């Protein structure tokens, strides 16, 4: 008990120094409260935003692996690349099913695409003088038929790139089982087609296939990729189900299907293990697994930046605060060497003396932490929102500048790929000081006190009372 009494007497006696220590801890506590509140709230926002996204894994080409050890400036190198590309075995539906049978995968879906030419309808294209080119000149067949395995696979509709304009009453009941299609509204106008009409398409080897139109969609201008055509990109895309297309390619081996599977996993950290499993199951090593993690995170990039700023700021504050407190403690100990000598001489143990010095700092620290918590709580909401507003504004300015460079004016958008155009999911953080923050702050405060007390603790262990008193004499 006398330890606490002595500690309190020393605090009162060394008012100036303790007020200085108190102010330093107060500043650290206020900053730590704000930054911890921002960090925790931002993490919650990020988690809740990212968890709204399915964790998607797709299979893509590993271009760097394919180009490995090859010189693209050399014709032989280019030939070799071409050969490597041609040698890659296309994925089949059986492969996809085999890969999907994994503990890491919760569900999967796929799109299956084939190319067919028009027989009863014409491909939508117009000869223009625009750059001396015809629209879609590179397309080998007139139409691309994209078949979805189920509604989850219809990412263009989910993301809003395609929007249904008109649909039959039972369209969604039959859409995934039968020869039914959705066509682009521009293609419908071009060919004067409407719902329930039947279209006939033909393969390169002249086999014909009939489909009934059960829906008409249009491409959303806001979310589509920009092009220089009078038609939208998807004008000659015909949407159907994967089952019908697989039946076509199974029956006619001259038609090559292109499958794009999407696997839903539980944790992005499992991707490497999943990739190894895929390779073991026979996936060509020129394929690589890709995730939507970056896209999933893009909407909270500003929140993440604020979060990482808060973390850095917290670390710097703690380091500077810790060093300053350590130095003050060292000076404190040097000034109180005589007191240590006397107390040791009259029988105070090293442990009790250490407890007294640590208690002094703890009492001052706890008082300052309490006040600091109060200040931090009051200011955390304002500080967090102002940081986020400034971060969003910086990001927007960058985006506007890039758009201007491309001649798209202040309000243009370069699309997802550019990274700056993603609309921020949150425009406020509203950092909250909750029990978790308080516990963390207490942990941080106490750790700081203990670390800065190392000076006192080591000095007390090292000092010989007799030497101190001799020096004094």
């Amino acid at each position, binding site marked *: 008990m006398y330890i606490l009494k002595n500690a309190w007497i020393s605090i009162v006696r060394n008012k100036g120094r303790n007020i200085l220590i108190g102010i330093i801890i107060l500043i650290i506590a206020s900053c730590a409260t704000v930054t911890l509140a921002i960090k925790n709230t931002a993490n919650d926002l990020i988690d809740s935003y990212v968890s709204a996204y399915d964790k998607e894994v797709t299979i893509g080409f590993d271009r760097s692996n394919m180009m490995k050890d090859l010189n693209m400036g050399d014709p032989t190198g280019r030939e070799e690349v071409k050969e490597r590309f041609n040698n890659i075995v296309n994925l089949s539906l059986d492969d996809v099913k085999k890969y999907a049978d994994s503990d890491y995968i919760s569900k999967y879906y796929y799109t299956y695409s084939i190319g067919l030419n028009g027989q009863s309808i014409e491909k939508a294209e117009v000869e223009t003088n625009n750059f001396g080119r015809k629209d879609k000149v590179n397309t080998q067949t007139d139409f691309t038929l994209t078949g979805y395995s189920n509604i989850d696979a219809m990412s263009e509709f989910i993301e809003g790139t395609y929007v249904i304009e008109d649909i039959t009453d039972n369209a969604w009941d039959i859409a995934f089982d039968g020869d039914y299609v959705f066509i682009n509204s521009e293609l419908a106008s071009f060919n004067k087609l409407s719902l329930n009409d039947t279209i006939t398409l033909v393969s390169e080897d002249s086999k014909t296939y009939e489909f009934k139109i059960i829906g008409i969609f249009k491409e959303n201008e806001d979310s589509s990729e920009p092009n220089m055509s009078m038609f939208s990109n998807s004008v000659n895309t015909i949407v159907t189900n994967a089952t019908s297309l697989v039946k076509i390619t199974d029956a006619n081996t001259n038609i090559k299907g292109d499958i794009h599977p999407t696997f839903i996993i539980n944790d992005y950290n499992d991707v490497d293990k999943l990739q190894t499993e895929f390779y073991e199951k026979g996936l060509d090593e020129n394929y690589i697994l890709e995730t939507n993690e970056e896209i999933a995170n893009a909407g909270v990039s500003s929140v993440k930046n604020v979060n990482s700023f808060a973390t850095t700021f917290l670390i710097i504050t703690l380091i500077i605060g810790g060093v300053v407190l350590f130095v003050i403690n060292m000076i404190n100990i040097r000034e109180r060497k005589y007191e240590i000598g*006397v107390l040791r*001489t009259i*029988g105070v143990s090293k442990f009790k003396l250490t407890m007294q010095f640590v208690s002094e700092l703890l009492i001052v620290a706890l008082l300052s932490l309490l006040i600091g918590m109060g200040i931090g709580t009051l200011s955390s909401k304002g500080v967090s929102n102002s940081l986020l507003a400034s971060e969003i504004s910086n990001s927007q300015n960058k985006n506007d500048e890039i758009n201007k460079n491309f001649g798209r004016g202040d309000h243009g958008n370069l699309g997802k790929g550019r990274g700056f155009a993603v609309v921020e999911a949150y425009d406020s953080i509203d950092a909250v000081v909750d029990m978790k923050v308080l516990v963390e702050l207490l942990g941080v405060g106490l750790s700081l006190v203990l670390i800065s007390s190392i000076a006192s603790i080591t000095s007390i262990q090292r000092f010989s009372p007799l030497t101190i*008193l001799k020096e004094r*004499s």
Partner: protein
Amino acid sequence: MKEILLSVKNVSYRYNDAEEDEYALRDVSFEFEKGKLYAIKGRSGSGKTTLLSLISGLERCSEGEIIFDNKSLKDINLDKYRSNDIGIVFQSYNLLPFMSASENIILSMDINGNKDKNKKEQAIKLMEKVGLKSSYANRRVLRLSGGEQQRVAIARSLSYNPKMIIADEPTGNLDKKTETEILEIFKKLAHEEDKCVIIVTHSENVCKMVDKVYDLDKKK
């Protein structure tokens, strides 16, 4: 019947950084009885203060051993020994300057584990016992004279009623009259309160007033 309280048996002390045969104190053996006043004398550098540090448990012997109340200092907790069994009085008083006279004495009682409520009254009684007015109780020790500070130091050393008082040149900074008064206090403590009082000194005047003198010069 003589009752030995402290035995110093073949004690030698060498500083850590000293040469192998360079001793601050070599093969010293003394015995100290209860109820007697002793002086340990010697010239500067004879090892007086070193012996005091060893007896008070502030240093440990390099060789030999010190037995207090039938227990070797090697086997006991020296912090407890200093706060319960012995009182130490220094030439430079070693009081805490930011405390009052009574606070210095009460602190020593606290360290000893005294839980009494009336510690201030006990402190004032001790002050009166060593010839200090009770009105000095709340006075900062720095506002007291050297003799008064030494009396506070003696009162502090008596605050837990130790069996032995060790004093290092307690009158070294004091005038003749005060020296005599302080020595009278020590004499009373030995003869009337059965305490063993050891004074480390080089003063011949002190040596004349004690019951027995040990001369370190002869031991070197």
